[in-house]
């Protein structure tokens, strides 16, 4: 049985055709085969949330998904959040202006999770935001500014 498999994956609008080991995680595929190092790996067992990406429109832990499972899938990473003109996504702009990051390690996962929340619940309460972000660990303890940034985007202060 082959321990490598050919996959075709669309990441941030670009389609890649690659042969990968079947045990390779989607996170390592994104970082080490596509060189998109904006997706971060913290714990590698689904706890910290840093590696969260959008997989077929839903947030997913890329450390708990195999690259071969993403065959045929559409993925968005933090590198894909800017628009075609290079303008930051409103959530990125809000994080930037509200100082919603210190070291930045958790930021890619925070952004993907926060954007999904506002897609599902455009007018969240502060509690909704805190619940949604509960699976993303920030060890700088910067949650307050992160929550404020997400609520500011919900209020359309950033477009």
């Amino acid at each position, binding site marked *: *049985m082959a*321990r490598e*498999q050919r996959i075709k994956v669309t990441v941030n609008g670009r389609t890649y055709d690659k042969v990968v080991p*079947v*045990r390779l*995680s989607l996170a*390592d595929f994104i970082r080490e085969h596509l060189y998109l190092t904006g997706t971060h790996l913290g714990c*590698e*067992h*689904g706890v910290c*949330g840093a590696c*969260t990406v959008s997989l077929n429109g*839903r*947030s*997913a*832990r890329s*450390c*708990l*998904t*195999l690259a*071969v*499972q993403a065959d045929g899938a559409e993925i968005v990473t933090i590198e894909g959040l800017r628009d075609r003109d290079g303008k930051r996504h409103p959530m990125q702009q809000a994080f930037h202006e509200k100082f919603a990051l210190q070291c930045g390690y958790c930021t890619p996962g925070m952004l993907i*999770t926060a954007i*999904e*929340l506002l897609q599902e619940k455009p007018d969240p309460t502060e509690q909704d935001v*805190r*619940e*949604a972000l*509960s*699976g*993303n660990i920030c060890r700088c303890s910067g949650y307050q500014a992160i929550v404020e940034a997400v609520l500011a985007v919900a209020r359309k202060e950033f477009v």
Partner: protein
Amino acid sequence: MKPAWFDYHAPRSVDEALHLLSNAGPDGRVLAGGQSLMPMLNCRIISPSVLVDINRIEELAYLETRPDSLILGALVRHADLLRDPQVRAGWPLLAEATAYVAHPAIRNRGTVCGSVSHNDPAAEQPSVLVTLDGTVLIAGPAGRRELAAGDFLTGMMSNALKPGEMVVGLRYPRPAVGTGAAFVEFARRLGDFALAGAAGTLTMRGGVCEKARITVVGMGGGPFRARDAEAALTGRSLDSTQCKNAFAEAAAKVVAAVDPAEDVHASASYRRHLAGVLTTRALETALARSGGV
């Protein structure tokens, strides 16, 4: 933090998956949502030599609400339950408990069947299946069978699957009219594995409890069904003057019956205390929701 080598298969049908599983023997594993299995592979807690990924089996991606029951296939994710208005209306206990399952990204991938099969002592889904008198749909080399939740769940992280079998679905009977249900749990941080939790249903008729179900989680084994406490409530009038005593009695029976494990997160006595408190809260809420007050 990287998994050991394995052979990977992504079958398109249950028959093909069963064939692969029986060829793999005891060293084959079904990969569904991967939210429990992948961490175990990454940490090399287990190193199966064959993974059978069922995510491309379309016949398992169904959720059907019937007049008498809810049936869901092995590819239904936790998040699918939360997004389904018919599930929320007809099986509110399931929806309420599912909201406690981990975090959004985990709920997007993790499957209900996978959680039931994995049978983590702190997991919500096995306890809901027990509380709602649900059954597990199994396919294997000898054909299909259906097992009651209590017979399927055989203890901590164990189930009654025979070699070569796989879980293909779950069935939840529709709760009787007059049934109120509640799920409560306590965790240090939202979405963490709960220190303890309780699921309760009360089916009320004319102020009398016709049927009670109480299941406690986080006590070490699989979900613990508190039959003594259920018996103490069944046939009893639960009006506003009597329900307090009745629930205290039921909670005391739960506390007496559970045998929680002690670990770094909580002592056994604290878990036992929580089991009683959470049972009372679940029953109070269930009663209010039954319309029986």
